[in-house]
């Protein structure tokens, strides 16, 4: 299946490259550096699909300012060194007009100096630990200030007073739990344990034993995506842990495939497939029509990518050109109503978002328990 996937990306690339010389109107190039290999490669295909749909839809409507959009995808290896190559290739070889992508924090940081040298806009579409600031960078996904409070408020309402926090030892894991800890304290709760395992750690035994002996009422975890999430959940279930469990880092797709092991887990996201809106329904249908059997479940990383493309379209139209300076100014002013609702990156280059608290059901689906409209991202970049 993945072979097909790659072949598909290749053929798209080839087609777009060929098209470049044939098309009358010069296309607007959108660079998508993304982790096709490495840690992010599980989710990257869904991100690429979302971007492809957005580009197809926009081009079908006549493009942007009469020019078609063109995607240029590059693998960043989910890390810093790969990202440098990918950003260099996109910015300086392919000379894209904008970068729109979901990436690891290390890859984003590695790319930023290159973006600054290339002086083009960069829309970052991944939720992250927050406070990445650059005049060239806009973010349309959530930060801890938006994601954590719904979870803690819900657990508190359920009667939890003591919390145990478990994370992977990296910027996102620590950033999320540090915020969670301070928020829990602010709201009168108590953190009885906070433990981290190295990112590639697989043996949670000692931490789970500590969790059990701590007698905590609820568990909040923020591990690296993919494997650590799965190993921790499996080992928690194996050890018979049954206290309420909120996972700040699991995506809907992973939760779904974990099946019964994931039942009852609380997740907090700006996108859940079960959102009941016309925009979401037509988005899901369009995705299904376009990709059919190859469809990767849309998620909290791919939908911001989809909306990122639209936000860029709006900004270019508002600016009247692809001139980076004008587009960068417009990006903070335009809005787009997509599957997640109306998105506007108006708050210090970040976006207020509607957050959803979901709970994994026995069949793997995620039920929306509660929604929190227009959660503010807080003071992310006061200097911008």
């Amino acid at each position, binding site marked *: 299946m993945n072979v097909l996937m790659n072949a598909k990306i290749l053929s798209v690339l080839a087609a777009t490259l060929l098209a470049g010389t044939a098309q009358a109107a010069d296309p607007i190039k959108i660079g998508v550096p993304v982790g096709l290999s490495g840690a992010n490669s599980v989710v990257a295909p869904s991100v690429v699909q979302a971007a492809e749909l957005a580009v197809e839809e926009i081009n079908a409507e006549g493009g942007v300012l009469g020019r078609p959009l063109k995607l240029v995808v590059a*693998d960043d290896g989910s890390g810093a060194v790969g990202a440098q190559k990918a950003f260099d290739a996109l910015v*300086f070889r392919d000379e894209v007009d904008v970068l729109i992508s979901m990436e690891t924090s*290390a890859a984003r940081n590695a790319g930023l100096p290159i973006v600054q040298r290339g002086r083009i806009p960069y829309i970052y579409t991944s939720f992250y630990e927050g406070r990445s600031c650059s005049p060239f960078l806009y973010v349309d996904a959530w930060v801890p200030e938006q994601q954590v409070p719904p979870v803690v408020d819900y657990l508190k309402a359920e009667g939890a007073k003591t919390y145990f926090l478990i994370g992977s030892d990296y910027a996102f894991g620590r950033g999320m739990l540090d915020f969670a800890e301070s928020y829990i304290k602010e709201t009168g709760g108590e953190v009885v344990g906070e433990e981290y395992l190295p990112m590639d750690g697989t043996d949670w035994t000692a931490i789970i034993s500590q969790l059990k002996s701590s007698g905590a009422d609820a568990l909040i975890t923020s591990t690296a995506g993919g494997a650590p999430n799965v190993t921790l959940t499996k080992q928690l279930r194996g050890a018979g842990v049954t206290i309420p469990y909120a996972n700040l880092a699991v995506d809907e797709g992973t939760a779904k495939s974990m099946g019964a092991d994931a039942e009852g887990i609380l997740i907090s996201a700006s996108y859940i497939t079960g959102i009941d809106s016309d925009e979401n329904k037509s988005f899901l249908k369009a995705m299904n029509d376009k990709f059919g059997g190859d469809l990767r479940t849309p998620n909290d990383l791919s939908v911001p990518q989809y909306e990122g493309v639209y936000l860029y379209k709006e900004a270019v139209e508002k600016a009247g050109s692809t001139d980076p300076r004008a587009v960068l100014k417009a990006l903070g002013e335009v809005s787009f109503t997509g599957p997640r609702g109306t998105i506007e990156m108006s708050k210090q280059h970040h976006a207020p978002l509607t957050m959803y608290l979901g709970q994994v059901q026995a069949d793997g689906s995620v039920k929306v328990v509660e929604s929190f409209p227009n959660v503010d991202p807080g003071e992310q970049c006061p200097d911008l």
Partner: protein
Amino acid sequence: MARRRRGLVLLVLALVAAAVMLAAPAVLDRFSLNVLTRAMIFAILAITVDLLWGFAGILTFGQAAFFGVGAYATAMILTHVGDSAPYVALGLVAAVILPMVVGAMVGWLTFYPGSSAFYATIISLVVPIVVTQVIYSGGTFTGSSSGLVGYWGMPLSLEGYFRLAGVVLVAVAFAALVFVRSDAGRLLTAIRNNETRCAYLGINTQRIKILLTVVLAGVTGLAGFLYANASGMVAPENAGFVFGTELVVWTALGGRGTIVGPVLGAVGIGYLSAELSGDLPFLWQLLIGTLFVLVIIVLPNGLAALVAPLKAWRKPPPPPTLVALPVTVPRRTGTAPLLAMEKVEKSYGSQKVLADITLTVAPGELVSLVGPNGAGKTTLMRCMTDGAAASGGTVRINGTAIAGMLPDAIVARGIGRKFQVASVFEDLTVAECLRMARACHETPSLVAAAETLALPASAIDILRLTGLDRMLASPVSLLSHGQKQSLELAMVVSLEPELILLDEPTAGLTKTERSTIGTVLKTLTAERGMAAILVEHDLDFVREISSRIVVLHQGRLVVDGTVEEAVNADIVKRIYSGGGHE
């Protein structure tokens, strides 16, 4: 002269390469500039891996860790302390010094007497893992998994960084090439070939390896400094074990032991992967992996080996001219015997191999040690040259007890040992082997291969008598068995030892060669005041040359006397009639 000309050619090539680096930004696009700048910085690392692995035989994944330490030192100073010119300079100093300090610790941990090649590899795995973990745990100080970004480094343009990285790469490659062709550089190959022989030539191989690790850690740190500046960010993966393995992959593909090969490997793969891997990430890694396995199995010397035949037409450097050193009679200090063994014993578990050995040897003596196989002759020799060998009793050299001393320290006290199976350096030439034997008398040059080779007259005699003096430029691997034996003897004699230990020096030699060696030994002992202990089975030979005979039987000294006494002793007749020896 020819040597100097070769050096000159290299210098001209380096200057041309540097000029190309300075001019290249004019014709390269920004994408290539950026990609090549980083690839060239990584190529500096590949050179250090090549020196360690390709030349000295130390397989290391740890260079990534030193690189990371250097890069993070720079980035952390620029982020947290300050970014004006003095702080950039401070970053440079820290980026070189800190990795050297870590390198010294790692070197001390890795290279100890008796450490195995595997152990060095293990440590080189642990170091990047630990460094990466420290970075992850460093919070905002190190930026954890996100790395550090957004600091200001040297105020250079893209072109400026390209030129800087290019010139530094050319300089490092030039220095490395000069070094590996120098006499000191050949020492690395000698250590890789035969560390024991090095030790028994009085060379402290551990110290050299630690020194090499420290110096290369500094070079690696310098590359880290360049990287932190040029890329404007550092990330944990720069210090990780996976990056360390990539460096080895580039070095292996390019061609280990060639310096230029790894540079081309690092730059070539770096550039190609930037061009291609974005489009076919998994296929690209599959391709590199497969190529790597094939190269290791089929082309251990890398892709450089494919062009090696082209080098064949180039004339090899001429061998150095032999120069005889003035004859010196060993200066004796004090009156203690040269060798004094007292009640020495050696046992393996409950098995006693040597018991109650008491033996003294004075200058000028030529003592033959005889006895049937398994009598403990070789073990006894080992007890004389390795402070850790004996399990009891004392061994004194010139009055100093050697217990706990390492072979190289004991050799430095005036003992030379020739092994039973010729122990020489397979990848060196005859002249280079002899140069190694003089290394502890005459520190080899770090930058040049000397035009002359000064040896004691007796060593030159051995070379002349065996015809090796006409084969100085020949690779040792092409020598016959007998020639290797003679070469080793010449090497040991070149040490100018006061006491020379020879384990079956005539085994496998022709009658003529044998008498040649006999003559040399007689001259050395009778005229130059050297003492010799000889393990020998050929009783006729022994009778002819010995001044004294010691008979070892079942781990005990049963006879110690003149040739006459020994030959007529009953026990000797009994052993040798029943022992099946000639």
